[in-house]
């Protein structure tokens, strides 16, 4: 049997390194003085400064996780937690400095903005350098701005929601995030407003030996709807970079939010991100996630279904190549009756990469008549890779329908034979099977991302029969 070679992601575009130029870069490490300096640089209100310092205390008290990939190589003394680029926030691309603008041009952000987005935020290192939204959305009362502006312009709204969905003691890297957060996006969609075209924030980390800690806070008010896309990338350096962002989503009664992520960090990145959504009565949050980059990723978006009839769907794919350990998954807590969750997770491992699907489904005592269906498939493309499935299913009441299924294995010889008997070549048969494997995910992505993903899964033949 021939071995197929599924190419890893072409990183030429993402690997463009700009000179490490900045307006201000905080010294490496994590101390009270550093946190105070970040707070001063960002001109925080007093409550935010206090929150940062409390979070630092919490960080120092909490232990590293006793499970998951080994992240002992992370040395906070070698990470600069705040790097301010040499530009202010702009609302036209012309005002963005040439080298930074060129990077985003090559990533296709301004072009996508023109064609298919209702608003764009672009973060470079620790600060948002560009933010813009279509005027008609502004008129409808939609707020889409960088997080720092939101803290100042909408203090009550931010204070009421900031680090409330994800408490600072959730885990060590949430506490770290809260202490040194910078950048990110704030979105508020007023009651009944349907945002038909997606908003997108793109996060780019250019500076070596640094971290990105953006905070995304989205409130979709009653009966409103939104599709938000998050993209991220970085050039590769020899030493580790750290990403410990935080995403807090509030989906109010009858509201709908789709949160799509294309994560394509470089292979020296430790991606220790946290994402949670609180979903109220008859509301729905859908997560669509493509995880391609990072050296180590530990990312488990979570839906907390607090309202009666709340729903969530998770559709995710991870693609781990050489040197990558992608430990991803999903968590859902059913906290009210008639709630439902559907999980469809896929992973592909090759060239010694390791994919782990790790999840939690908890159906609490009061979540009568709730349903949860979980399916995860793992594809192994060679015999040096690894793939694990580690799901926890915690069912605390009888009036539920819960099922979990997982499969692991290589491309089936029978399926190849069947397709070949229909006239396809072996290579085409294999290509079709791998694309088909990823299709349930790619069909959920915006078109341009789906095309990009299919390009990434580019098939080639290698070796001879036998």
């Amino acid at each position, binding site marked *: 049997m021939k071995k197929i070679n599924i190419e890893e992601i072409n990183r030429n575009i993402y690997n463009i390194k700009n000179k490490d130029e900045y307006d201000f870069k905080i010294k490496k490490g994590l101390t009270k003085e550093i946190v105070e300096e970040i707070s001063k640089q960002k001109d925080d209100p007093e409550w935010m400064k206090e929150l940062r310092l409390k979070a630092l205390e919490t960080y120092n008290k909490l232990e590293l996780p006793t499970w998951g990939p080994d992240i002992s190589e992370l040395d906070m003394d070698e990470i600069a937690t705040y790097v301010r680029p040499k530009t202010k926030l702009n609302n036209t691309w012309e005002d963005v400095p040439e080298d930074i603008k060129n990077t985003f041009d090559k990533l296709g952000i301004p072009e996508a903005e023109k064609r298919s987005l209702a608003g764009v935020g672009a973060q470079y290192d620790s600060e948002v350098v560009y933010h813009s939204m279509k005027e008609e959305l502004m008129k409808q009362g939609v707020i889409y701005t960088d997080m720092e502006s939101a803290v100042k312009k909408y203090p009550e709204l931010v204070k009421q929601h900031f680090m409330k969905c994800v408490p600072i003691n959730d885990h060590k890297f949430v506490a770290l995030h809260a202490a040194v957060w910078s950048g990110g996006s704030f979105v508020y969609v007023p009651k009944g407003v349907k945002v038909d075209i997606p908003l997108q924030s793109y996060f780019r980390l250019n500076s070596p030996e640094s971290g990105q800690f953006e905070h995304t806070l989205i409130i979709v008010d009653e009966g409103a709807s939104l599709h938000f896309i998050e993209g991220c990338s970085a050039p590769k350096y020899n030493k580790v970079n750290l990403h410990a962002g935080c995403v807090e989503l509030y989906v109010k009664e009858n509201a709908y939010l789709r949160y799509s992520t294309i994560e394509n960090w470089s292979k020296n990145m430790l991606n220790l991100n946290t994402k949670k959504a609180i979903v109220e009565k008859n509301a729905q949050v859908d997560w669509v996630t493509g995880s391609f980059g990072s050296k180590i990723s530990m990312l488990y978006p979570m839906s907390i279904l607090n309202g009666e009839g709340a729903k969530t769907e998770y559709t995710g794919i991870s693609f781990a190549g050489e040197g990558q350990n992608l430990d991803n998954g999903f968590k859902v807590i059913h906290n009210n009756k008639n709630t439902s969750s559907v999980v469809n997770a896929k992973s592909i491992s090759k060239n010694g990469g390791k994919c782990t699907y790790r999840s939690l489904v908890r159906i609490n*005592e009061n979540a009568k008549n709730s349903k949860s269906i979980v399916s995860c498939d*793992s594809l192994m493309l060679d015999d040096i890779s690894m793939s694990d499935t580690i799901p926890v299913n915690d069912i605390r009441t009888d009036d*539920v329908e819960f099922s979990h*299924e997982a499969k692991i294995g290589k491309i089936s010889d029978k399926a190849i034979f069947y397709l070949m008997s229909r006239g396809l070549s072996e290579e085409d048969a294999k290509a079709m099977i791998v694309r088909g494997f990823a299709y349930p995910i790619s069909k959920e992505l915006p078109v341009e991302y789906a095309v990009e993903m299919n390009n990434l899964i580019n098939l080639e033949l290698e070796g001879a029969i036998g």
Partner: protein
Amino acid sequence: MEILKLNETPVRTARNFNINNIKLENINIPEKIEKFSNINIINNNSKVEIDSIIDNSNIVYGLNEFFSNQVEKDSNQKIRLNINSKINKETRIEYKFDKENNTLIDNIQIIANENTKSTIIIKYFTEEDLEIFHNGIINVIAKNGAELDIVIINLTTIKSNNFIAIQNTLKENSKINYCIIDLGGKNSITNYYSKLEGKLAINNVNTIYLGKENQLFDLNYIAELNGEKTNINIEVQGALKDNAKKHFKGTIDFKKGCKKAKGNENEACVLLSDTAKSLALPMLLCSEEDVEGNHSTSAGKISEKELFYIMSRGFSLKEAMKLMVKAKFNKILENIKNEEIKEQILIEIDNRLD
């Protein structure tokens, strides 16, 4: 009383999921182990050595250090079965608990020699309403071509503490079929570990658990597939009444080199009350490409449509529920060839479902 931590999973999950290991408080662990003499061995097949020295140095998991050491040092029943017969005959070991024999620390070693066949039934039971303590190790080695059917039946009371660690080593072309009936124990904690070393080794495990009142079941099943074309099938069917709780931790670990190995794991839990709890962690670990691994778990009550159908045939709700649970258990019980034993189990299931 100190808190006992035991039955740890091979891979850790977040601590707040409360499933990595079980923490038990206020377990009456007997300080002095008295003699246990209520044992009945019906042997048609094996060379049985009682009180022989048993080598447990190959034990990989066990429940924890304390429980393994207790078996090592304080066993009041040591049995070694050396199987040489090529015709499948039955050996039965029955431990009967009573007031004088209420603590059993047993260590059973089963060595199935090449190309032998045998059936071994191990039964733990009592006819009195007693709190008993049982801690045991069953260490099985199936040599090339050996075939074993092993039935383990726990019919102790729901006041009891039942701890058991089972380890199987399977050599080339060997096959072990297990049927585990787990009904007794306020705490019933099982560690099951199979190492499928030899090519074409097969291990089938079929388990029933049935919990009522405050019973707690913690089942930690681990299968490690090393040999080519090895095969593990785990089927667990359970039902929980009242405040009963179950942790099922099932790991199928495909090690590098186990080409064309297959692993299937299915766990289904019927919840018969809204305060019963089911916690499951079915893991697939895979370091080999050319394998097939599947797992599935499910939990929920008996479907109303099914109940309605049976009740429309003249059964009461309670009878209909019992019938449905027994129907789910039946596919496991079919693996027990001894009709007398099967009948005893069915009566016990019936009583415990009342």
